[in-house]
């Protein structure tokens, strides 16, 4: 029997990237609980409106798509102050207990990304009790039809926020909204707003560097409305096929890719259908990005736009993956196909690919964003050295090497890698346990592309069952280091915490087809393109758990 999730028990932001469902505007609010009892009451009243993952539809017995959604999550300090018992608290993971700031060395949040440069709200967090972020509430607002689509969305958001503020006011100081989210002119706000990037007033799915974002969000078992999206988003299985990832990679209380239940706090009712979320505010240095792209693009043989695509693994205009469209000629063919395809066909063109025919990285570089974040089956690679065949190796024990010419193999060309067949149970063995659901939206507007400062970037929220195994591993090993990709200490080009030391500048290698006579292109002196401006680790409880927290009846005994 196919697995079916209890969608009414799971918070909607776990399963849905709201942006894709017509919600272009969001507001994130952080709260501090001053009084446990009032805090629980507040959680109770919010939980009545919390958006679940249920399927939407019109007609009898169906849940109508809401004008706005609201979701709630908690830090470790928040759960403690809301009265979750110690015997439950000790079951949460150490990184969740410590929080993002304490994990900065692992995350590479150094230099301009270090906590002293974070927004005041995140700087003050975990310094004094009164300023600790305890609760994160996120509101997403539905767009309207026609020209007023954005105004309608903003109206929906304001309506939701008004209701939410009313609930906070009812606590009479038991729960307070924290300010300190930086705005456009350095002012401090009581909320973080986020909104899709507009192009001449029209909605886009791009971020501020101009890339289409969030295409390959993982698909896992039990979500009915994701069934047609498995190709390229689930896990690669033998025979070039795809299957949804195990639910336990993203939801506690379910079996994961290792056929185990992820470590979770007791009782089961507190953790099942809940999960962890990583919230990060990432500033984008648009001027530096434009300048670097211009400067390197003038030298890069394929030109500026191909180079931009090499940074990420997708072309900026329509998101075409480099694996399918590695150069201008193939891109033109892809574009024609893309234009003629229906919705499903378009989705397949964007997402349904593997790196099997690009194991050497000649099309999609090893340090590009999508290859680092989701390597699919590309980590199972080997390089065959020149030498003897097995029989030749045996004969060489008795005979001089000069007699054994016919028992020699040439080996792969330098820089050539191929799929290591049979070494792993499944093609995705090295990446299936490192996947992340990505939520969130861009924030701010770029008013002057010649300047890095200002208030623009991405609010990224990554959902996973194990922050350490999934998010922190990807951040430390795949974004800020390159060894798993046979790329030494090269970092991921866009997100890497590139070196600030002129003596040891960051570089990345853009590989070429090892059988061609081209030389690889070396990206040198890569500047820091993205900087962390704050963030924290949160727990998103199920609806059941929310009710239990609100009633103060969490009891693991």
């Amino acid at each position, binding site marked *: 029997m196919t697995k079916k999730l209890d969608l009414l028990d799971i918070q909607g932001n776990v399963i849905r990237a709201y942006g894709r469902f017509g919600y272009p505007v969001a507001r994130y609010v952080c709260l501090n609980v001053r009084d446990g009892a009032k805090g629980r009451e507040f959680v109770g009243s919010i939980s009545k409106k919390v958006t679940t993952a249920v399927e939407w539809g019109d007609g009898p017995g169906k849940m109508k798509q809401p004008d706005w959604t609201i979701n709630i999550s908690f830090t470790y300090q928040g759960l403690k102050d809301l009265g979750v018992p110690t015997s439950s608290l000790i079951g949460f993971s150490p990184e969740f207990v410590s929080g993002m700031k304490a994990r900065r060395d692992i995350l590479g949040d150094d230099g301009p990304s270090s906590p002293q440069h974070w927004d005041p709200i995140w700087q003050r967090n975990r310094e004094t009790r009164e300023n600790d972020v305890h609760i994160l509430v996120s509101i997403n607002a539905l767009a309207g039809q026609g020209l007023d689509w954005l105004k309608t969305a903003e109206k929906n958001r304001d309506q939701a926020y008004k209701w939410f503020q009313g609930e906070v006011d009812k606590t009479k100081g038991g729960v307070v909204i924290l300010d300190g989210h930086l705005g456009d002119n350095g002012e401090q706000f009581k909320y973080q707003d986020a909104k899709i990037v507009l192009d001449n007033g029209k909605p886009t799915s791009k971020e501020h560097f101009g890339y289409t974002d969030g295409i390959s969000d993982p698909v896992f078992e039990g979500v009915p409305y994701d069934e047609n999206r498995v190709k390229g988003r689930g896990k690669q299985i033998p025979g070039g096929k795809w299957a949804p990832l195990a639910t336990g990679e993203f939801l506690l209380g379910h079996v994961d890719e290792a056929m185990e239940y992820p470590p979770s706090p007791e009782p089961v009712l507190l953790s099942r259908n809940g999960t962890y979320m990583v919230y990060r505010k990432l500033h984008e240095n648009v001027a530096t990005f434009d300048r670097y792209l211009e400067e390197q693009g003038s*030298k890069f043989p394929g030109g500026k736009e191909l180079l931009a695509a090499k940074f990420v693994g997708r072309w900026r205009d329509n998101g075409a993956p480099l694996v399918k469209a590695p150069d201008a000629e193939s891109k033109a063919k892809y574009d024609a196909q893309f234009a003629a395809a229906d919705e499903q066909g378009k989705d397949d063109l964007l997402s349904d690919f593997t790196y099997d025919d690009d194991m050497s990285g000649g099309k999609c570089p090893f340090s590009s964003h999508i290859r680092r974040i989701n390597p699919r089956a590309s980590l199972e690679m080997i390089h065959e050295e020149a030498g003897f065949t097995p029989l030749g190796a045996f004969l060489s024990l008795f005979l001089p090497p000069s007699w054994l010419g016919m028992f020699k193999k040439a080996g792969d060309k330098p820089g050539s890698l191929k799929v290591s067949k049979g070494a792993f149970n499944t093609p995705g063995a090295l990446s299936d346990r490192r996947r992340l659901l990505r939520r969130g939206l861009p924030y701010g507007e770029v008013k002057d592309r010649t300047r890095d400062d200002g208030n623009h970037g991405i609010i990224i929220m990554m959902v996973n069952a194990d922050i350490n195994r999934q998010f922190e591993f990807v951040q430390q090993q795949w974004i800020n280091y390159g060894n798993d990709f046979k790329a*030494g200490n090269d970092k991921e080009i866009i997100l890497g915490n590139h070196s600030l*030391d002129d003596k*040891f500048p960051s*570089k990345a290698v853009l590989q070429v087809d090892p059988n061609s006579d081209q*030389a690889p292109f*070396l990206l*040198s002196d890569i500047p820091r393109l993205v900087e962390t401006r704050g963030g924290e680790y949160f727990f998103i409880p199920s609806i059941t758990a929310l009710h239990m927290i609100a009633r103060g009846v969490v009891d693991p005994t």
Partner: protein
Amino acid sequence: MASNISGNAYALTILSPIKNSFTDDEVSYADTVRDRLQSWNSEPNSPMALVPQTYLCRYFVLDDVYTESLPGASAIDTLIDLLPFVPDSLRRCYWPKEDHLNSSYLVFSCNFHCGPNADLDGYLRNMWNTISDKIKEVWGFCHGFDGVDNADKFIDYMKKCQFEATLFFVGSNDDPLEEQLKALYLKQEFSKFAVSNQGLDTATLRANFKGFIQRVAPANLTAPTWTAGGYRIDKLVKRG
């Protein structure tokens, strides 16, 4: 070839029993040895970085052997379990005994370049000649170390404590340490050269490469190269 030798690499395992005694301030010898070893962590570098040809090594104090579980049942155990008239006390005496050590042990596990003749003596002699003070600091609490005051006696002592185990670390081939450090240095410098000379015409490239080769001197293993035991990128390169 002995199993603890692989090509020109040697896997040395030393188990030295620590005396069951304590110091004047009532700290056991085993704890004292561990404390001294741990104090090396706060020094600018490990004393072992001074010992020529050391690839990697590890020191620790083994207090006792680790008991993982009761031993698994054999077919006879299962049979006895099924026979109701076998008394429990009899059944228990057939369980294998748990093993314990009579004392704590200082364990030294080391991989080094031994050359084609598996030269253990040469390595240990160099070790004594470079860090004998540090050696005495920890081995001084071990059985049988009294009177070890020169390289020959140290070699004899170590061989008595040697345990043939194939504990090889991954991450090193069997070339001499100088070769490996030079190779790593060259690799780092070459990637910098490739970056800074990208796209130049052939003639300039050839001229620059000539200059590069002169500067990095591939045949000169002493300089410029990486320093042994270096762990900070800005302190790694030893200039000529």
